[in-house]
């Protein structure tokens, strides 16, 4: 044999150009892959179950219209939530332990800033079944939005002169500019919703509404301040936080004065920052670490401190006054609880002198004839998990029925009540129980009206952990805040938004857990070339003649969509 023969590449190894299709390797199979999209951990973490993974995927392609449409599936307020949400979703992000959570809130803002989309109608089954919604805060708006998408004629009744409830009156413009809120309101009102303002409803009005509508939703919120219950609270110069935020005249009084805000939550921080913007000489927050709910995000505390607000852990016991006006707050020393750093400022002085005190330690339901016949639970109106009160046809949503006082929780309760109303009125109880399967309160409304099975809200996608190792670590995108010196001179929005490029890059960091994006890995790695896209959509199916059940497709599916089914 010659030199060239045994080194001739064409001869030395066998290679076949024929197809192996004739071998029905599917007959070896003991199980088959199952293609099933699942909840992403962020979606499970979102009280409103926003379709985040899909929105991120759309945005990563620069399709902000698609991203906004994905948010609008579950939420009427993407512009609002993109700014003020406490983003519980982000703490669940699979990227969190890798290189930092995807900035989902900033992405919701980007989708609403750069995208345009109309709300999608879900069904017209609610036609001829009118519903009245009392209160136009996030709970009332969400309920009205979803009821209208299910075909119900909706009458949205607001006591004040403008829609928005706490969004309008409670959240200052530097966090939520008016024109941003109006953008969401305009989109909501493009549905079949008749909104009326300046229309407080009393008991007689409620009875009348229950007669003229098939259902009434109370989403009236909690507007009464929780009193401190300490001596001196009646002195001049002591006012509740929400009153302060609502009242321009009260705000004007702080100019040149020393202001003390008592409380640890969002209202306290907002009141302090509004006082700074109105020219207060000095603004101190006294918070009781053992009692107060802390603000939703550290960002706000940091921003307030940047603006000159000083926070001190202290326990007010008395307001001291001179000639009927408050002049100081007396505090007892705070004890340090075992192992808990509840007292950051150890040597708090006993007496804080001041000219004005704003108390912001929480909101109460207050007294109203609207609730007189209803059951109460821990200071709120009692209802089942979907908002049904003891009175037939009357439902409850938002802070009036819940102690979880965030915008997104209010929105979610509005959605729950809307579904309950729709199903009670149309008699479709099965899918309600499906939606609430496993005792969960978060569910996708969009999915209830989509053909196909409803995904189990308890199942979160198990993503391929290998993607942690291979994904290049990238820092989350961020946009700078407005300079603190500029902030305090007005009510300009503080938080910067991502630009389109930054948002696209941030969306690209998302693993799209549980959502198929047609990456084709399952098809690429199938040794039998048996995985194929079906119907030209991002769905895959194994060809039973050739799938031998090896599971390669499931092993490489980064997003946990393809898994191996039970043994045949």
């Amino acid at each position, binding site marked *: *044999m010659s*030199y060239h*023969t*045994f*080194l001739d*590449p*064409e*001869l*030395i*190894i*066998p*290679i*076949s*150009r*024929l197809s*192996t299709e004739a071998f029905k390797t599917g007959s070896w199979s003991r199980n088959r892959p199952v293609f099933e999209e699942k909840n992403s951990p962020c979606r499970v973490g979102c009280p409103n179950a926003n379709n985040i993974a899909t929105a991120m995927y759309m945005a990563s392609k620069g399709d902000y219209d698609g991203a906004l449409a994905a948010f609008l599936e579950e939420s009427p307020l993407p512009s609002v939530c993109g700014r003020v949400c406490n983003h519980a979703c982000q703490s669940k992000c699979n990227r969190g332990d890798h290189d930092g959570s995807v900035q989902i809130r900033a992405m919701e803002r980007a989708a609403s800033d750069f995208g345009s989309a109309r709300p999608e109608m879900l069904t017209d089954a609610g036609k001829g079944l009118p519903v009245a919604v009392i209160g136009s805060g996030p709970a009332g708006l969400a309920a009205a939005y979803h009821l209208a998408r299910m075909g119900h004629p909706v009458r949205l009744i607001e006591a004040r002169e403008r829609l928005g409830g706490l969004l309008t009156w409670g959240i200052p413009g530097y966090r939520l500019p008016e024109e941003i809120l109006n953008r969401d309101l305009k989109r909501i009102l493009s549905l079949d919703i008749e909104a009326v303002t300046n229309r407080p409803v009393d008991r007689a009005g409620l009875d009348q509404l229950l007669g003229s509508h098939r259902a009434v939703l109370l989403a009236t919120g909690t507007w009464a301040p929780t009193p401190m219950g300490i001596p001196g609270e009646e002195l001049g110069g002591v006012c509740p936080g929400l009153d302060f935020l609502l009242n321009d005249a009260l705000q004007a009084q702080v100019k040149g004065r020393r202001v003390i805000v008592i409380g640890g939550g969002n209202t306290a921080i907002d009141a302090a920052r509004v006082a700074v913007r109105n020219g207060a000489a000095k603004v101190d927050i006294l918070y009781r670490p053992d009692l107060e709910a802390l603000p939703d995000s550290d960002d706000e505390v940091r921003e307030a401190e940047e603006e000159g607000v000083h926070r001190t852990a202290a326990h007010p016991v008395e307001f001291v006054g001179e000639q009927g006006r408050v002049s100081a707050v007396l505090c007892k020393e705070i004890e340090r609880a075992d192992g808990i750093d509840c007292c950051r400022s150890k040597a708090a002085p006993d007496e804080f002198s001041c000219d004005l005190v704003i108390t912001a330690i929480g909101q109460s339901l207050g007294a109203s004839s609207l609730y007189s016949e209803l059951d109460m639970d821990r200071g709120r109106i009692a209802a089942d998990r979907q908002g049904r009160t003891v009175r037939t046809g009357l439902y409850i949503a938002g802070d009036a029925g819940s102690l979880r006082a965030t915008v997104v929780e209010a929105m979610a309760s509005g959605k729950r009540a809307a579904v309950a109303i729709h199903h009670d009125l149309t008699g479709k109880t099965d899918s309600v129980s499906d939606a609430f399967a496993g005792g969960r309160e978060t569910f996708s409304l969009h999915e209830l009206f989509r053909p196909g099975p409803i995904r189990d809200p308890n199942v979160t996608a198990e993503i391929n952990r290998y993607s942690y*190792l291979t994904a290049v670590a990238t820092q989350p995108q961020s946009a700078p805040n407005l300079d603190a010196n500029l902030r305090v001179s007005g009510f300009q929005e503080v938080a910067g938004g991502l630009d389109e490029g930054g948002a696209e890059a941030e969306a690209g960091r998302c693993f799209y857990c549980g959502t198929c994006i047609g990456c084709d890995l399952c098809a690429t790695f199938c040794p039998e070339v048996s995985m194929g896209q079906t119907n030209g959509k991002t769905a895959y199916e194994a060809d039973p003649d050739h799938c031998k059940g090896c599971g390669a497709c499931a092993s490489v599916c980064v997003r946990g969509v393809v898994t191996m089914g039970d043994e045949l």
Partner: protein
Amino acid sequence: MRKFITGNHAVAEAVKLCRPDVVAAYPITPQTPIYEQLSDWDSTGELGGTMVKVESEHSAMATCLSASLTGVRTFTATSSQGLAFMHEMLHFAAGARTAVVMAVVNRSLAAPYGFWSDQTDSLSQRDTGWLQLYCENNQESLDTTIQAFKIAEELMLPVMVMLEANFISHFMEPTEVPEPAQVDEWLQPPKLPRRFDLANPGFSNGVVTAKQYRDFRRLSSDAMEHALSVVERVDKDFGRTFGRSYGLVEAVDCEGAELILVTTATITSTARVALANLRSRGMKVGLCKLRLFRPFPVAALRSVLDNAPRVAVLERNISLGREGIFCSEIKAALVNSPGHPKIQGYLAGIGGTDVNQHSIEWVLQDAFSREVFMDQPIWVDDAAAEGGYNA
């Protein structure tokens, strides 16, 4: 540039100089520093190519052989259990006529577990169809790795380069690291056939008929035989450019010797000292270092050993139930020698135990004066290592 580095890092330097397109490996003591060093360079971009982090040695070899079939330069490294786990894929790499280069750090095989030098791991892969070269020191490990790419790519046969655990892998020696430009000039990019073409899909290594199988084996066997001349030519060519060459075997003072000691790998360095000592005392002893094991250099070995009356084979491995593996091979190679040298096998250093000057002198004295040559090997014991020859 001269660097003071371990044998593992010498191999890594060689690999970087050869600009592999694909490196796939899995860590295992004592090879891990090769993998770590390459991984470091991969992260800084100095390595170039693609480093594939696999979940096992089996996959490392599967990755390398598949990549090689697409025509690119590939490298991996392993040791002991990792090599054993790779065994099945070694046959594929050779049978598919790939040009994978692999560094094997010789380490004892379990059970029981040990981390020290023993050649049985790579010798157990004797029949997989790979070329095997055993290195004496860090410099030779570096040089042989560079040579291995040229040999493998010309022959389209995979090459194993052996360095010993601890004695080479972790010992530091001054090592000459060639300039990149010099290596680029000497080792051109691979000219391997690209067997896969998306426009014309194919399937390699399918089922063949018995006759086809025999014919493919025959072609591989012929290529192996031809490999002897290629390894020799590449080594000489390397010597012309870099000033160092090693041969298939190396003979030291073998002309007219009454006893020739055959060694491989690191034992050779110590043997050089022992031999010099005994020669200065008038003993006519020679040393033959075996560097290439597959293909076995029968002719080169016979040219050294054919006329020696006595041959001692000293080695750090054992085929249980027979003797040292090199000894069996050498006996078989000399069976047709006209002078029929007497051959005695000695086992020393098994499991990484020390083989020092004294133990080698003991072996030489024993073989020199022995009247009966035994079919079984002699275990060189610790007493010999300490006390010299008293038999």
